Structure formats: C-alpha cells, structure tokens
C-alpha cells in the first residue's frame, strides 16, 4: 500500500473510531433516560424525575463533547477523497444533507427544550421533548448509515460517462435498501447496549461505594431491560446482516471466517482449530448445506452462488474491468473530436461496465482484505458483546433475587462491561470497513482510485492535528463526566 493511501485510510479510520466513542452513548443513554422520564410522568414520583435529570446531565456532557465530531469526516471527503466525492457525491451527498438539515435541527431544537424546559413546560411536553431529542439523534444515525450502506451495497444509481459521476435514479432504493435497514438496526441497537452498559457500570460503581443505592439499583433494572431488548435486536439484525453480506460482499464474509476454499458444509470458526460444522453455511444462507464461497473461489476460481448465479472469478472481473477502463479512456479522448469513434468506445464501455471498478486493481490478490484483522475483530466483537449480554441477564436475575446491592463480583463485572461494549462497537466497525477493502464503494471504486493527489506529509499533518484535538476532547469528556458522577448525591 502506498504511503498516501495508508495515511488517508488511517486518518479516516481514526476519525471514525473517535466519532463512534460519542455516538452510541448518545443513542443508548438517550433511550434509558427517556424511559426514566416516562416513568416519572406516569407515576408522578419525584424519584424518577431526579434520576432522569442525573442521566440527562451525563447525556448532555457526552452530547456537547461529541457533537459535530463527524464533520471532520465530511471535510476529509473533500480533501483526501476528492475523486471519491466527484464519482459518487451526487448520491452520497443527499443523505448527509438530509441528516444535517432535518435530523440535526430536530435534535438541536428539542435538546434545548429538554435542558431548559424543566418547570417551564408541562411534564408531558417535557417528556415528549426528551423522546424527540433521542428520536432526532436516531434519525440522524439513519441517514449516516444510509450513506454508509450505499458504499457497502450501491443501488438506485446510474453512471454518467460524460461527467464521470454516478447519478441517483431511485432515492427510495438508496434510503430503504435492505442493507441500510439491517445496518441501521444493528448499529443503533448496539448503541442501546452501550448506553445501557454505561448506566449499569456507573450504578454499580455507586453500589460498590455504598452511595445513591436506591437510584443505582432502579437504574440498573431499567438499563438492563433496555440493554437486553437492544441485545436481542442487535443479534437478530446481525443474523440478517450475515445473510446480506454473504450475498453482497462475499469476500468480507470469507475474510471474517478465514475461509480459503468454499463449501456447502462450511463450518463456523470459533477460534483457529475449533469449528462448528455447517454453521457458517447456515449463518450465511439459512441453509445448513448452503454454499459459501472462499477467498480462492472469489479471487481465482469463480463459483455458483447459493442463489444459483454464476459468479466470475476476481481475475476475470479485473480483465473485464480493464476493457471497460480502456474503452472509457478512449471515449473521453474521442468525444469532442470523433463522435462515431466515441459512440463505439461508449458501446464497448457499456459491454464491460459492470466490472469497471475492477479495472483499477493490480491483480486478484488486491481483492483480499487484511484477513487476520477482520477475523479477530469479528470474534472480539462477539465475545465482548456476549459478555455484556451476560451482565444484563445477571443484573435482572440479581434484582429478582434482591441481591443486586450485595453482589460485589457483579459490580466489578459491570465495570468491566463498559470497556467491553465500546470494544465490541469498534470491532464491529473494523469488520464492516476493513472487511470491504479494497473498495471505497463495493465493486465500483477501489480506495486507491478514490484518493486525492496530495502530498503524504499534508495528510500526516492533519492526522496529527486531528489526533491531538480529539484526544483533548475525549480527556475533557472523561474528566467532566467522572466529576459529575463523583459529585452526585441522589
């Protein structure tokens, strides 16, 4: 990988990872505090009002520090990924613009009512504002994930060779693609898990310290229920995502399993050497004997998919892509001077354009992402996520047995669940994004073709500046939040 490509990818990954520290807590903690305020409105019990206000305070700290951190990613599209932005900006820009105009303003309006409105508007109106703040944040996530899903599974567009841009044909196909719906559910519900794990961890800290006991116990119960609902939904969406990825991004699945040769009896690898027979076939196709292609099938051999489609090998696709690229260059050269020659070149291009993006790749090996990173990130995500689910289950069981206050082992486990849930979220994104390499847009544009012509030192400089700023923001958030937690007296 050349230096510019490495640095540009590194910068984008770093920005996205930092951004994803703030977002899931906003989504999940928002649900927990909204449920608590609803309990206050329904019961009239001031305990729930004070409890909801405390968690809203922590929500506010996270929101204030995290808000707009995603804008840096949008800067990077114009600076580091200008070819990408030119190529697909007409499609990719639409959901980002809707996110900015609709969802962000909705969040901003109702968050003001939520923080300034206590005692000034009715209880029901306040509770509605709190819910609408969270719904606004969730809608915001929807449009960002629509944009990301379109990169994973581009639909609803047509390539215009005259402008070298992809143009949107069907907005609803982009906004409500199968991939977008699944990704939205999986990602937002993982945010619920994060918010719930945060509340359980902070509350367990209070229980360990023997402080704010009633608030801590009742908060754990609410959070564990929200977390468990989020976990079940997240698992369901993860299952649907497995089938979707097997169909649209088979290389990602093969890399996540380290599967070299395809099989109708593909096993699921728990760790190297420990496998569950037929399980990968089932997860990928919902059929214990469904065919799952391996890396060799995708790069060199070609295969017949579970849906009985003949799929060319990567080598054959690259050969087709080079023909498309050559015809496209010819078209660009002739379109002013020789209309007939340009028309022939365009016809040649159209004959091979399905594999246009493959023409930018050096060889079939370039189609393989970093297998160890994807393989282990997937397993860490599952292991960490399962531990967090176990904590939610344990919390509800201990609450039922009236032992929530006395079980110190659970309190320490809950504290451990907090870094685990963040690690699971980060690893999930690593699987999604490293797993789809070398593509910036699956099958259309590899990352090396999406880059800007920049000096690597420029990208390095902005990466360092960005890393310093975001580390400072993270340190500020942790400091303010820990102080707010320590100072709180229920």
């Amino acid at each position: 990988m050349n230096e510019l490509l490495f640095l540009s990818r590194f910068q984008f990954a770093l920005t996205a990872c930092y951004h994803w520290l703030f977002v899931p807590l906003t989504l999940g903690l928002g649900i927990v505090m909204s449920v608590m305020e609803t309990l206050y409105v329904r019961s009239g019990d001031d305990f729930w009002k004070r409890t909801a206000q405390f968690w809203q305070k922590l929500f506010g700290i996270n929101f204030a520090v995290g808000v707009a951190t995603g804008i840096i990613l949008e800067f990077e599209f114009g600076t580091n990924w200008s070819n990408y932005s030119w190529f697909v900006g007409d499609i990719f820009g639409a959901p980002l613009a809707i996110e900015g105009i609709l969802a962000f303003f909705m969040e901003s309006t109702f968050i003001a009512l939520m923080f300034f409105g206590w005692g000034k508007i009715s209880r029901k109106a306040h509770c509605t504002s709190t819910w609408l703040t969270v719904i606004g944040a969730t809608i915001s996530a929807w449009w960002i994930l629509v944009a990301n899903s379109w990169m994973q599974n581009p639909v609803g567009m047509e390539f215009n060779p005259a402008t070298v841009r992809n143009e949107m044909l069907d907005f609803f196909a982009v906004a409500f693609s199968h991939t977008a719906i699944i990704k939205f559910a999986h990602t937002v519900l993982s945010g619920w898990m994060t918010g719930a794990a945060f509340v359980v961890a902070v509350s367990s800290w209070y229980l360990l310290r023997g402080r704010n006991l009633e608030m801590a116990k009742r908060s754990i119960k609410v959070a564990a229920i929200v977390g468990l609902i989020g976990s079940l939904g997240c698992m369901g969406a993860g299952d649907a995502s497995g089938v979707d990825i097997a169909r649209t991004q088979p290389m990602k699945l093969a890399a996540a399993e380290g599967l070299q040769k395809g099989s109708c009896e593909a096993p699921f690898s728990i760790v190297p050497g420990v496998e569950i027979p037929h399980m990968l076939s089932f997860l990928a196709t919902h059929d214990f004997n469904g065919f799952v292609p391996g890396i060799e099938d995708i790069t060199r051999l070609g295969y017949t998919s579970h849906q009985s489609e003949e799929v060319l090998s990567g080598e054959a696709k690259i050969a087709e892509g080079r023909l498309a690229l050559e015809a496209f260059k010819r078209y660009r050269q002739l379109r002013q001077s020789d209309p007939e020659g340009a028309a022939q070149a365009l016809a040649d291009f159209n004959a091979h354009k399905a594999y246009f993006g493959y023409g930018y790749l050096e060889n079939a090996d370039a189609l393989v992402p970093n297998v160890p990173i994807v393989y282990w990130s997937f397993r860490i995500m599952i292991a960490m996520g399962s531990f967090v689910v176990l904590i939610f289950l344990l919390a509800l069981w201990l609450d039922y047995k009236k032992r929530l206050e006395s079980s110190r082992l659970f309190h320490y486990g809950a504290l451990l669940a907090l870094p685990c849930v963040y690690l699971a979220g980060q690893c999930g994104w690593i699987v999604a994004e490293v797993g789809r390499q070398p593509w910036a847009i699956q099958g259309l544009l590899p990352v090396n073709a999406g880059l800007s012509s920049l000096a690597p030192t420029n990208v390095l400089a902005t990466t360092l500046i960005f890393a310093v700023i975001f580390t400072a923001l993270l340190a500020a958030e942790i400091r303010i939040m820990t102080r707010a937690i320590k100072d709180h007296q229920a």
Partner: protein
Amino acid sequence: MNLLRRIFYFYLDGFRQMTWGRQLWIIILIKLFVMFAILRLFFFQPVAPTIAQ
C-alpha cells in the same frame, strides 16, 4: 410577537440559569472554532478531483 418574546426569554433564562452547562458551551464553542475557523480554512481545503482525466 408575544410568542417570539416567550421563546426568546425561554432561551435567555435557560442560558442564564446554566451551572455546569457553561463549561460545556465553552468546549462546544472552542471546538467549533477550531473545526471551522482553523481546520476547515487552513488544513482541509477541497482538492480538485482528477478522476475525469
């Protein structure tokens, strides 16, 4: 007009009565200044795409 006045005073009172929120607003304003007045203007200038060539 009365509605606009009420909205104005709602926000004004909200900002006046802030306690820990002041610190957060300072962070937000510094962050937005750094992002838009420094990073965006001096470091993240849009680059002309070359893919059409």
